[in-house]
């Protein structure tokens, strides 16, 4: 991938801080900024590639949630299933959408950056200045991830009726790593089609999206799922694959690195390799292929790791 294309594929950072911070920006390895229009020239003069982001353009973008964990005593518990806030489902629902993480609190920017990259979304990050170094490190890591254009892996076809209610359902399906693709009409080739308002999936049952997503999971069955993650409740997956190559993106929404994450992926695959932020290349451990799936252990997951597998 060319440098220009690569930069275009990476999330864009909105930086309203004064140009006096140029040295810190360069030191963080950040090569491209979006800045207020009246500061573009000053930034360019300081040797930083800068493009204007008007207030109007910011407002026109869809605002995203802060990625991470929430304490929701009514629906989640620290010991069982922490409540994950993630935006991947929004990117999937509106691939042409233009998004904004507005005023991310400290500690969130690196995860948001990785989240955008994983889904190839058009998103602008307005970060806390204290996260500059972490974002720079993440961007530099993302630039090392080899390109892979592969079809989406999905177990569930979801008929998108455009409703907010379905958005809640998509969010919960994503939290459970129930890989889905959005369709305009029921798909006879899908393992399971979810359409709100049908006899199988009544609209009123979706009023509790968590229970609804669990019902979808049980209807699909765990055995028929393309991907399973063991050892954490806070790692979300996106997978793409063809018959010879698979790529699994793993995002850790928790606040701590995870050691020894076990992944089960449908199909027979060779041992493969992993590349993790803050870690670099690492071998996959305890590789265990069977007839219908391949399991491996990821030694460590900081925020984001990409795993590439080749067919056996």
């Amino acid at each position, binding site marked *: 991938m060319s440098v220009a294309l690569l930069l275009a594929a990476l999330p864009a950072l909105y930086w309203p801080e004064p140009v006096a911070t140029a040295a810190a920006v360069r030191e963080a390895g950040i090569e491209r900024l979006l800045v207020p229009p009246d500061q573009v020239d000053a930034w360019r003069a300081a040797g930083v590639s800068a493009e204007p982001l008007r207030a109007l353009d910011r407002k026109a973008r869809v605002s995203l949630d802060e990625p991470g964990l929430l304490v929701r005593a009514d629906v989640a518990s620290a010991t*069982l*299933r922490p409540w994950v806030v993630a935006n991947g489902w929004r990117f999937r629902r509106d691939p042409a959408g233009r998004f904004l993480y507005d005023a991310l609190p400290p500690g969130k920017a690196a995860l948001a950056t990785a989240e955008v990259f994983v889904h190839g979304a058009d998103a602008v990050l307005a970060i806390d200045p204290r996260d500059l170094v972490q974002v720079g490190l993440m961007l530099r890591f993302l630039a090392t991830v080899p390109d892979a254009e592969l079809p989406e892996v999905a177990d569930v076809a979801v008929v998108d009726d455009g409703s907010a209610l379905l958005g809640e359902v998509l969010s919960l399906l994503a939290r*459970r*790593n129930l890989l889905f693709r959005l369709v305009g009409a029921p798909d006879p080739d899908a393992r399971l089609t979810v359409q709100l308002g049908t006899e199988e999936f009544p609209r009123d049952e979706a009023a509790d999206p968590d229970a609804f997503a669990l019902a979808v999971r049980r209807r699909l069955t765990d055995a028929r799922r393309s991907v399973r993650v063991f050892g*954490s409740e806070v790692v979300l997956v996106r997978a793409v694959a063809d018959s010879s190559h698979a790529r699994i993106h793993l995002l850790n929404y928790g606040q701590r690195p995870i*050691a020894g*994450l076990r992944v089960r992926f449908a199909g027979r695959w060779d041992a493969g390799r992993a590349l993790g932020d803050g870690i670099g290349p690492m071998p996959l451990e305890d590789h265990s292929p069977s007839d219908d799936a391949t399991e491996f*252990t990821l030694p460590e997951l900081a925020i984001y790791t990409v795993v590439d597998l080749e067919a056996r």
Partner: protein
Amino acid sequence: MDRRSFVRLLTAAPVASAVGARSVPPYRVVSAYAPAALPGMPGPWPGRVVDVRSNACLDPAGDVVNESVVRAMLSRGMRALTGEKSTTDAWRRFFEPSDVVGIKVNCGGHPFVVSSPAIVAEIVRQLVAVGLAPSHVHVYERFQNQLDAVDYAPHLPEGVQIVAAEGWNLRVDNSAYDPDTYVEAELFGEENTRSNMMRLVTRRLTKIVNVPNMKDHGATGVTGCLKNVAYGSFSNVARTHSRGTSHTFSFVGTLAAVEPLRSRTVLQIMDGLSGVWHGGPFAHTRRYVFHPRRILLGTDPVAIDRLLLDVIDEKRRAERAISIWDRSPRFVKLDDTAARDDDPNVNIMIREPGHVEYASTLGLGVYDRARLRLEEIEL
């Protein structure tokens, strides 16, 4: 060892017990380990328990352990259990110099009710007398912070390994667990559906000595031999209790029956010097601590835990607290640990003391009180 995985599917079915029918979730048990010719649980003496008592094992306040009395209690108990004349010969019935032995301690009741360092030290002393190198003895728990709080090292010879699977209970480190030996079940809609056995147990240890305490437990009714060795050797077990409901009824025994844990756990030594009759498995205050001044020995975890049920329930009755068998919703304040700690008539969920009987249905031991062969020894 045959590396093929034996997959055992235990299908969902209601199970009748002394306390009524319970539903048992479907479990998928995966292990490559075949059982020993004589699995350690229930071992050579199903239903047999030696109960050694001595008022002198603690000072009158219950704070200070008399190590020489504890040593005498263990010696007498081991000789009675095995029928051997010498203490070393009694230990030789279980262990040989080539063994690598794990001592599964319980540190969750720190500071007042943990596996006594005096008992652990005497076990190590006897293993070394049998001919084991100290480095072949592993004192283990799941969480390092709990081991650190108790600090066994000053009581043990140089070389003894003191190891934990995780730093503390954050559920972010799975690397010390065996990815190929696990029980899979979805209990409350969780995604992380596997509980894996510690690699130490599957790949290093040849035998295990289980050293639980006499403790009340908010989910299981009591925590004794079965729960200590099961929940203390597997990952991701706290998921079995949620919002007033606990699957411990079937999960404790199911874990304990997984190979190689079942075959390698050859000796049960229940530390009943001190116990906790409410608020367990923790013992943050002295309020619910009591001092049975006993050590129970055997190879059958069910038989010992059957006696423990009575010990805890009788103590609770004496303290005018509700029974561990009480399932009335009116005593349940969901997950309100502060209320539970304040009032011995508060449960935070429905307790499942029936887990001991359920374990007996898996072949782990004898539950029927009338069939127990109890030998009481007073020193």
